[in-house]
């Protein structure tokens, strides 16, 4: 097709791949889509690429075998070094190979401890990690067995100020991730685009819900930030609700993207702006979460979220060892009747 005001089919064909990945600039993207509306041949080509992308996304990959980590650990324990060929190709990341023959077992022992902890979080096993003095920190003592069942430990080494800030920053990252996703997926097949946006929205909603749970107890968020977090959460809920509709169309994707890209509230915060109420010798995060979660399942998710994503970050600068002990039997039924 030829039109003086529109890019030629040749130009459009060369842009198909980048358009599919949402990499065209605003003006280019508009011209591209206008052309597609008017040119059935280019549209057909674009649709085929989109089908190909969808089909590629449906391919299945084999996960690693169950004993992958154990075998890796055994190699670390054995002091096995990186094979020379790994670093043979010149790379900007590659550094000269340095091996640690001596004392590898000590480092490996620590690694085992961490793996057991995370396994415990996942599988409900119990384990403990000795601190530098060889002692094992005590667990929380709580009245209710049900509360004890939640994955929680003594958070002595956690810097509470950092913990709060990390929790906010995590939400901020999810929000930015969602928005940058939105900028890219508009031209993807609707179902695929919605799935991607829904996943990211779910993560954002969960992280904001966690902040909501600890706000007013563990932390005190500044009013403006609290309100902006709620706005972000309601946007994410709108995306999820739209994504769950059976008939995801280009129009519905576009509506969602427009909503996400509209003027957004800032979710950034400094450690000064967040007041910490509970701090010192261990943070009773468990009690707070249990008291405010809507169900055991939700409490469990929050604790896992905190341990997986926030605690390692919040001890980043701490010179202390992490003193933790988990007790993780199966989570009992602790259904609450909402808040």
């Amino acid at each position, binding site marked *: 097709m030829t039109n003086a005001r529109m890019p030629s089919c040749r130009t459009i064909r060369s842009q*198909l*791949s*980048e358009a*599919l990945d949402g*990499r065209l600039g605003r003006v280019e993207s508009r011209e591209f889509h206008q052309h597609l509306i008017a040119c059935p041949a280019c549209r057909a080509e674009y649709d*085929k*690429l989109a*089908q*190909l*992308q969808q*089909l*590629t996304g*449906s*391919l*299945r*990959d*084999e*996960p*690693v*075998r169950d004993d*992958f*980590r154990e*075998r*890796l650990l055994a*190699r*670390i324990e054995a002091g*096995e*070094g*990186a*094979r020379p*060929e*790994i*670093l*043979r*190709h010149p*790379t*900007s*990341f590659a*550094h000269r*190979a*340095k*091996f*640690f023959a*001596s*004392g*590898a077992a*000590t*480092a490996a022992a*620590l*690694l085992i401890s*961490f*793996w057991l902890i*995370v396994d415990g979080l996942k599988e409900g096993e119990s384990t403990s990690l000795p601190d530098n003095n060889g002692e094992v920190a005590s667990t929380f003592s709580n009245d209710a067995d049900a509360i004890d069942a939640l994955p929680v430990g003594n958070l002595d080494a956690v810097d509470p100020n950092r913990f709060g800030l990390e929790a906010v920053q995590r939400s901020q990252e999810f929000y930015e991730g969602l928005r940058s996703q939105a900028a890219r997926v508009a031209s993807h097949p609707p179902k695929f685009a919605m799935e991607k946006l829904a996943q990211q929205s779910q993560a954002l909603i969960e992280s904001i819900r966690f902040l909501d749970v600890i706000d007013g107890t563990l932390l005190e968020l500044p009013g403006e930030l609290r309100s902006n977090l709620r706005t972000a959460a309601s946007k994410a809920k709108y995306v999820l609700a739209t994504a769950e509709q059976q008939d995801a169309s280009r129009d519905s994707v576009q509506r969602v993207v427009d909503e996400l890209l509209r003027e957004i509230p800032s979710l950034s915060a400094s450690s000064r702006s967040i007041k910490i109420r509970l701090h010192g010798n261990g943070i009773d995060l468990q009690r707070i979460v249990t008291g405010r979660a809507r169900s055991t399942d939700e409490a469990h998710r929050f604790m896992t979220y905190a341990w*997986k994503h926030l605690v*390692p970050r919040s*001890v*980043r600068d*701490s010179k202390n*060892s*992490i003193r933790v002990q988990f007790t993780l039997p199966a989570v009992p039924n602790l259904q609450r009747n909402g808040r």
Partner: protein
Amino acid sequence: MTVSSIQSPVLLASYQRAVHEYADPLKAFAARMLAEDADWAEDVAQDALLALYRHLHDVPESAWRPWLYRVTRNLCLDRLRRRKHRPKNFRDYADDENRDPVPPGTPSIRPEVRAQEVEMQRDLARAIEELPPRFREVFLLCERQGISYEEASSILDIPLKTVSTRLFRARQRLLKAMATHLDDQ
């Protein structure tokens, strides 16, 4: 470097998360890069993660992901180069037959539709395997692993524009290979 420097609990916790997060994607990337030698994919992923452990203090945490992909890719290229010297035609189709390309949880559909879908997925997997490695690696990184053009450019040490061009060409080749299926839609 001393061993005590690697004993930082925080660093080890981060490494543990990296193993958890990247073992499957690295294996998946390696399996499709290696194609006929996919049995080696898990070993390659493990070699890459072991290498990272040995270099925890050399590689900044923010660069772990591109570093791991780069090492994995280098190991795959090494293996592919060695394979060049072996006679071809040893493709084991039985493996493909046994592999169920439909992800778990896929809603049940009519058997004939399912069979058609399985056939398309098998043909696509084969078409990807047959891409030249320089196109295949870009396609797998950007399309299968969800890596940005910028990160792919850093992993492969090629200009951003080259990433875009190679991805474009990879897609064109796959479109051609899958023309019958896609026309049927």
